[in-house]
């Protein structure tokens, strides 16, 4: 660090003030609230009043109550599936984008990002109408003869959450993959070509390995966004799509049990942080070998 050098020079104190401010911002607005939140998870609630004596009861309840861990686990699996599907769909799209020349490439990229400009809630409402029994999807499938009669498979269950989250989050997967693909120097592919590799070989042994950092960050992005979402499961999940976000939400709204909600959030935050670290680590390792 350069800290020792600047400490010795008294004329540099305005710079140190700036440094202090730069550190103060994240500390005040991110670390302190998180610490307060962590603190809350050790309190309890009694008849609508928060009891400030320290206890680990919230964590014990989370780990011992038969309803929370299964829901937690199912939610992790669900969001992992969303991440995998998003990456599988986003990769070809991003790859296709990099094959385009000049202006078209960015025009199309912009078009793919347009859904992000729309309100999140409106998108969920729209998707729910599409998935409904009298919705567009069912009408299309029936008129194409794929289904005999409208199916309720697509809405108010886990499938619906999976479908909706995938649709909502796919732009977040396309962008990082596109960026890493774009950064691969074309010379590498040309060299592989010159050395006699087929297009498939070049892709498998040059392009794909070099793009894995983007895939990793795309997957961790999508996973983190999906697992933090409670609105999508609430609106399209119905009676069987009960997710951890919904449990968490109910602790803050319905139950007014902030301490327990905070404890559940800490558990969720642990998963989120792990996902981010994994994504970053994986990305960096691969990146270093370029």
């Amino acid at each position: 660090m350069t800290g020792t050098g600047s400490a010795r020079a008294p004329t540099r104190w305005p710079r140190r003030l700036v440094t202090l401010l730069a550190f103060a911002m994240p500390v005040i607005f991110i670390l302190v609230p998180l610490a307060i939140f962590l603190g809350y998870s050790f309190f309890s609630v009694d008849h609508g009043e928060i009891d400030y004596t320290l206890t680990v009861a919230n964590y014990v309840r989370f780990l011992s109550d038969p309803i929370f861990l299964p829901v937690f686990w199912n939610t992790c699996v669900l969001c992992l599936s969303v991440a995998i599907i998003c990456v599988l769909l986003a990769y070809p799209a991003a790859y296709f984008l990099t094959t385009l020349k000049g202006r078209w490439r960015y025009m199309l990229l912009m078009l793919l990002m347009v859904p992000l400009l729309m309100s999140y809630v409106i998108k969920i409402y729209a998707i729910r109408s599409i998935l409904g029994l009298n919705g567009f999807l069912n009408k299309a499938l029936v008129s194409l003869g794929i289904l005999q009669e409208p199916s309720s498979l697509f809405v108010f269950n886990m499938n619906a959450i999976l479908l909706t989250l995938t649709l909502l989050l796919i732009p977040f997967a396309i962008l990082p993959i596109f960026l890493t693909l774009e950064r691969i120097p074309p010379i590498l592919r040309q060299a592989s070509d010159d050395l006699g590799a087929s297009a498939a070989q070049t892709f498998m042994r040059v392009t794909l390995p070099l793009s894995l950092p983007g895939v990793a960050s795309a997957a961790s992005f999508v996973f983190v966004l999906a697992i933090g979402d409670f609105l999508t499961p609430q609106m399209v999940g119905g009676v069987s799509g009960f997710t951890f976000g919904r449990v968490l939400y109910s602790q803050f709204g319905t139950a007014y049990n902030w301490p327990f909600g905070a404890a559940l959030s800490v558990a969720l935050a642990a998963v989120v942080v792990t996902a981010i670290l994994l994504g970053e680590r994986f990305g960096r390792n691969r990146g270093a070998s370029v």
Partner: protein
Amino acid sequence: MGFLRRLQQIAMIGLGVGLMTSAALAENLRVLAWDGYADQDWVKEFTDTTGIGVDVVFIGSDDEIWAKIKGSAGKDFDVFAVNTAQLQRYIQADLVDPIDVGQLPNQKGVLPRFRDLEAVGGVTSGGKVYGIPFCFDSIGLIYDTDKVKPAPTSMSVLWDPAYQGKVLAYDNGEHNVSFTALTLGYKDPFHLTDEQMAAVKEKLVGLKHNVLTFYTTADEAQQIYQNNDVALIWANYGQQQVKALQKVGAHVAYVNPSEGALAWLDNWVISKGVRDKAAAEKWIDFMLSKKIGGELSERTGFGNTVTETDSANPNDKLVWLQLVEDPLKRSDLWNEVKAAP
């Protein structure tokens, strides 16, 4: 010196504008209400006659009101609407201020059954008035007249396997436990014993298997009804929902179940953090005028406390909502029901 005078003028105008806006900001009444309780034209009329600006925030559930008021210790709002069952909780938590009924001339003109506030139950405490009833409705059952025959008379139809996957239920543990308790024939649905609670839970898990999904707002229920095959709706928003559905051409009817329909009664209350109490009382009195009451019923289908409406059928058994034994317990039970396989 023309220039100096001009400068002075500008300064005065600037000061004037500054004072006006700061006055407007200080006077603005902060109202927290359900959709339909503070329509724009009423707010405008109120501001025009009293000179008091109003900021309205709309909410979507009882829990949201509690979280908002409790979270800010009442400091974020001056006046809010809350039902009789919820009000006691606010009184106990010291989040609401007593109301001087003498400041509400229109309260003298309300319908007889709402005139004696002590007799209404739930709006007074220790001889002080905390809530002014202004709006009520039953929580009945909406059924599709083409799909449900004969017309149902009890909530027990929600468990009928004939309507599997065609039932829309409401996402709220408290009400669901209460109405299920009524369906099971329990006398006091708001204070259940442990055995009764267990029986209700089992019954609710059974209901879950008949349910398409749980909704939160009336608009949401309508959207789901239009895009799916729905036969029965547990109508948390009663008449409001029926009206809206009929407006879009749905063949639906409404019934108050014979075992007794839960019914809510909404009141205007003044929060502990009120900035200008006189303004808050003016708002309440304004809402109790015959014109607003009539328009409220006309637009929403709810009953109001100042003019006679069709909402309260004398033959229907209405069970006014009360504070339940333990909201936390019911909310946990509801999560267990939702998580049950």
